[in-house]
């Protein structure tokens, strides 16, 4: 059709809607990609034209990846971006050669997008067959599948009955599995909830799929510091950047994507001498009352549950003085004091992470050539990290109590404030995970 091809041609230079799956080792690169004006990362595959599979995706997530691929409307394409990892056998077939390590990802994506729209590259076929998973098989011998309160036997649907809750009537519940590619959580977090209306009745986070997934993704500065001393400046700068990236994701969760983009740009470029821009950001975020409006009183963790867990900002926001850096002579020489909060809720964790980002930049500026002096345990931005023991695994048992009774928006805010990272758990489980391949 002439009109359709005219529209296609006009749309070739539009911002490409991409659904990005940022697997192991790819989060930072995908964050940099999102800053490019040619690419627009979307929340749902129904709005996307290109599926970007970056980094290493554990094979247990392949069914979900297939579902996401088939959920995209046509014309659709897939692009693989290994980023130095071995992506293994992915269920999706790419529309173009994988993006190389030195290529400009935004350009490559725009190139494939143009080819898709102009018809040079055919739109991908769905991976799963287009068949009804539960076809109607007619009326059965016991009346099932038939008419009359459809569902067969008399009184086929239970009516409302008594329940031990405030109203005394049992409400309809919906068991739901959210993830592993839910845009507000990192890849690999699968949340299994039972909801009644908009309230979470019970919820839990499944184990990290990255554990046991051997792949060659690179270890970050915190993993490297486990085995041999690392420069304090490097570690603290990485910590500040991680905290700022968390702030960016939390801002997107609270409905402020433009401000989140600004914070992401800052996170990518901040240097130790740049502390003023971070303080300016902190002031702006607090002026807009973002932590208070979204997190005051939300996701409160009783401090009695937390001693000894070493959960980083989550523990310190509850007033617990747990920081692996306070036993490191290098930090003590710099006069390091962990920042503590008292209200153990999401707003306090916001404030704490912002304050720690400032503190980390200050430490990085004053550190000079110092190196850390303790190995075997390191304080990652999420808590105490040791080989085979990551904060994600210690957070999992705490989550069901946290989520019970929360409204969905509050539940997402609470989980985001915990800063779950299944990838860290996976890398920590691999002994000396390519620590020297940095």
């Amino acid at each position, binding site marked *: 059709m002439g009109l359709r091809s005219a529209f296609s041609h006009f749309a070739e230079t539009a911002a490409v809607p991409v659904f990005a799956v940022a697997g192991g080792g790819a989060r930072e690169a995908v964050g940099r990609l999102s800053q490019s004006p040619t690419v627009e990362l979307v929340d749902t595959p129904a709005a996307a034209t290109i599926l970007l599979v970056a980094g290493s995706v554990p094979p247990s997530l392949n069914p979900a990846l297939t579902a996401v691929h088939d959920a995209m409307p046509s014309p659709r394409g897939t692009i693989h971006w290994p980023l130095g990892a071995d992506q293994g056998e992915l269920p999706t077939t790419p529309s173009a050669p994988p993006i190389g390590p030195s290529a400009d990802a935004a350009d490559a994506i725009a190139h494939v997008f143009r080819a898709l729209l102009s018809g040079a590259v055919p739109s991908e076929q769905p991976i799963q067959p287009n068949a009804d998973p539960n076809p109607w098989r007619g009326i059965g011998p016991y009346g099932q599948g038939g008419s009359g309160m459809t569902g067969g036997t008399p009184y086929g649907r239970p009516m409302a009955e008594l329940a031990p809750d405030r109203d005394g009537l049992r409400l309809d519940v919906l068991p739901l599995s959210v993830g592993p590619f839910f845009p507000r959580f990192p890849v690999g977090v699968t949340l299994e909830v039972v909801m009644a209306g908009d309230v979470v009745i019970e919820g839990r986070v499944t184990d990290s799929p990255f554990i046991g997934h051997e792949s060659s993704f690179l270890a970050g500065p915190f993993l490297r510091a486990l085995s041999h001393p690392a420069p304090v400046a490097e570690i603290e700068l990485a910590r500040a950047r991680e905290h700022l990236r968390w702030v960016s994701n939390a801002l997107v969760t*609270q409905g402020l994507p433009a401000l989140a983009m600004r914070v992401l740009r800052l996170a990518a470029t901040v240097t130790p001498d740049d502390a003023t821009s971070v303080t300016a950001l902190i002031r702006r975020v607090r002026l807009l009352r973002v932590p208070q409006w979204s997190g005051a009183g939300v996701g409160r963790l009783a401090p009695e549950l937390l001693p000894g867990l070493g959960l980083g900002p989550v523990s310190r926001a509850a007033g617990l003085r747990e920081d692996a850096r306070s036993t490191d002579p290098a930090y003590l020489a710099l006069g390091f004091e962990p920042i503590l909060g008292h209200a153990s809720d999401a707003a306090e964790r916001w404030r704490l992470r912002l304050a720690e980002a400032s503190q980390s930049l200050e430490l990085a500026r004053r550190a000079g050539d110092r190196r850390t002096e303790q190995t075997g345990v390191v304080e990652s931005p999420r808590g105490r990290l040791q080989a085979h023991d990551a904060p994600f695994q210690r957070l999992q048992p705490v989550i069901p109590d946290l989520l019970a009774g929360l409204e969905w*928006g*509050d539940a997402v805010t609470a989980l985001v404030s915990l800063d779950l990272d299944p990838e860290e758990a996976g890398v920590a489980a691999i002994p000396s995970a390519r620590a020297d391949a940095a």
Partner: protein
Amino acid sequence: MRDYASPPLALMTIGLVMVTGVYLIAVMDRSMATLIGGGRWTLGDSAIGPLRSAALLLVQRRRVTERPDAPAWALAPALLTGLAAVALATVPIGPDTVATDPSTGFVVFSAAIVFVMIAVFLHGWSSNSALAMHGAYRFGAQALSFQIPFLLAMLATALPAESLSIVDIVNAQESLWNVVRQPLGLPLYLVVGLAVSFWGPLNLPDASDLAGGTSVEDSGVARLLWTAARAAMLLAVAAMGAAGFLGGWWGPWLPGPAWVVVKTVALLALLLAAGHLLPRIRIQRFVVTAWVILIPLALVNIFVSAAVLL
């Protein structure tokens, strides 16, 4: 009954105004996002970018979920557009220039606003998707909470005019704009306006913590129509705010219609900026605020303006 414009002319005018307004909102929104995000702003990107994205959505083939309620899913964006058109039709541009001016114009506008919750609920429920259904539930709570503050805030503007017709309401502002006479009215109306068009801090049904909420399963033309319908609703809210609180066509040097445009664009800029700078409000807090704070404030507004008039 008053004089009405001929239906075809009225429909064409409203259609034209809606298309222009939606495009303007898209350009302003994209510009604000680029500026606040720290990127480089180019006129080409901001002006042509929305058109290219719209062309892409037109080219995409719509994909469906398993066993949706297809008629309701298709009806929802059309219903929302229709309601925005009805709401816009009651806003006057000049003393004799209005698409429709029933003597109860205020009630027509209110009925259109209240019906929005049906459109959003249908949109979320019919796609057979849990996250979309959740967005629909949230908007049910939000809509039922904002209705009374909305009606009361707008009703206060009818008091000085002693009439429910919008033209009379604007005419009564010849000497003094309602924003000055009833200082509580415009802030209240803007908050409720954001709630009606579920924009920015009150974008609960299509929220980012629901991965898009009621539009999580939308693709292609359906997505384009829903986005355009939401923008049209925001335009209608801003236009009525300009007419009811900022004095409509009254103003010194420019002709009447130009003033209406200027005031509407000013309110639009304010609402869009709020969308980019204010975080989303929790649904529990909004419901409690609407019932416990906004209703008494609106009642105080009415009592005070009535006392002043009597």
